[in-house]
């Protein structure tokens, strides 16, 4: 049964990526490599370009130049089949973006049914399986508006996983959550990482980055300033800008 054939994790290669909005260059030649099964956290201040970089990986934003490859897909190639490529790249948004007119279960089945042409029973079996993994199968009949933020974000993760992605992108997945629900979402992401998923995570959760990430990339003003093992970048940063950023984040009162 297809429900058990997990997708093979894909690697990501980003080479010299540039992106401008008018005169404002937000990505100034970014090169990052993510190995299959690796978890990379992108950290940096607001406006450093980390979300834009993430959104270029599934072409929600079109870069001006440079090259991205995800597994077998030449993402930046003009002839790439965008829809086929995106089916292999799951994305989780800061604002969840669940479909409010559909139930939790339908949120998870609509794309497999309408795009992959799965029949209802097959799609629902897989969706309930994914909802069970995030602990929400009991809420399958609810509408998103009836769920807490943390629950909605867990559904969003389950929804992405029903497509059997080879890569998961997380765009500040806990930034819009009440503090007490952050932990549930991070725990699911940790489980996913341990299951071998390739993940790129834009986050401000330094604890998560430290515990789960294989590597951390620090960006500032559209450039990669420092990258390396999480322990090294967060625990013993070498670049002055990284040191400054982490000092502000970890000790905001400056004592």
């Amino acid at each position, binding site marked *: 049964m297809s429900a058990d054939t997990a997708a093979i994790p894909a690697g990501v290669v980003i080479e010299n990526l540039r992106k401008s909005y008018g005169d404002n260059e937000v990505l100034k030649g970014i090169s990052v490599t993510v190995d299959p099964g690796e978890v990379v956290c992108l950290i940096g201040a607001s406006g450093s370009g980390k979300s834009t970089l993430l959104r270029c990986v*599934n072409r*929600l934003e079109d870069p001006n130049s440079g090259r991205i490859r995800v597994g077998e897909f030449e993402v930046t190639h003009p002839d790439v089949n965008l*829809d*086929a*490529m*995106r*089916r292999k*790249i*799951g*994305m989780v*948004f800061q*604002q*969840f*973006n*669940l*479909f*409010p*007119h559909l139930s939790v279960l339908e949120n998870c089945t*609509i*794309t497999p049914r*309408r*795009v992959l042409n799965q029949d209802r029973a097959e799609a629902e079996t897989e969706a309930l399986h994914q909802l069970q993994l995030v602990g929400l199968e009991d809420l399958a009949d609810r*509408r*998103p*508006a*009836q769920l807490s*933020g943390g629950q909605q974000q867990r559904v*969003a993760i389950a*929804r*992405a996983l029903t*497509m059997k992605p080879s890569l998961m992108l997380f765009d*500040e997945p806990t*930034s*819009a*959550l*009440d*503090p007490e629900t*952050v932990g549930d979402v991070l725990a699911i992401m940790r489980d996913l990482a341990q299951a071998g998923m390739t993940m790129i995570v834009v986050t*401000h*959760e*330094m*604890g998560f980055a430290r515990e789960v990430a294989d590597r951390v990339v620090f960006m500032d003003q559209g450039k990669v300033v420092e990258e390396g093992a999480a322990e090294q970048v967060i625990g013993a940063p070498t670049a002055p800008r990284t040191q400054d950023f982490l000092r502000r*984040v*970890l*000790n*905001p*009162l400056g004592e």
Partner: protein
Amino acid sequence: MALSNRDRARLSLGLQAGIFIAVVAVLIAIIDWGAVQSSFFDLENISGMFPEVITVGLWNTIRYTFFGFLFGLIGGTLLALMRIASFPVYRWVAAVYIEFFRGIPAILVFIALGFGASLAFNLNLSTLQTASTALAIVGSAYIAETIRAGLQAVPKGQMEAARALGMPAWRAMVTIQIPQAFRIVLPPLTNEAILLTKDSSLIFVVGMAGSAAELTKIGRDGILQYGAGMTPLVVAGVCYLLITVPLSMLARRMEERSPGKSSRRRPKKKATESPVTAGVK
């Protein structure tokens, strides 16, 4: 002496009631109620209009409006999609159409279609076809703007989430954006149906056979038939209310339980930049 708030409120209420009673008393005194009744509420005329006012007039008004609204909805949706299309020619064509037909009186469309269709296109339209086409032409222009606003009111993240899952653009539009937009525009669309109901009366300028007569035509014929009294128009007017009042009640109810109300609540803005700051605040 200073009045308490409660006394002041009571005084205000008493004043309002006093003025009301005085106005009603004056009206009763100066109006010739016998003349009013024979002009507008002649019972013999009223009973003479049944059952045709319902079986022919009301029925035809509903039919003309229904088909006019239906085709106006289809046309309006297409125009709305053209208004936001990436191909610029579609946008221009839709914009010109909408500006044109919103800007001219609906009665011009009825006249042009009623007398011009046979000349220009060699078409012999029935009254139903003429009325519903004219209503659809005018209605689609208004409906297009309503639906466009609805489509643009759906948060951008919805389309992004659908595309990120791998839905083609048309599929995301049909499955995600249009259903949500329709929920948003259902109340204003109901108001559009009310306006079209009333505009269906304009078919009288074209003229029609007795069996195709709608409410306004029945009312006018009634005046000719019964002489000077305006009673048939009052009956026709009440019949319009039989359509429009339930529609506006429906619109109000849908507004109250609009699905957006609970889900429109925005997720909190970045609550915390880091878990460390949360504890300090």
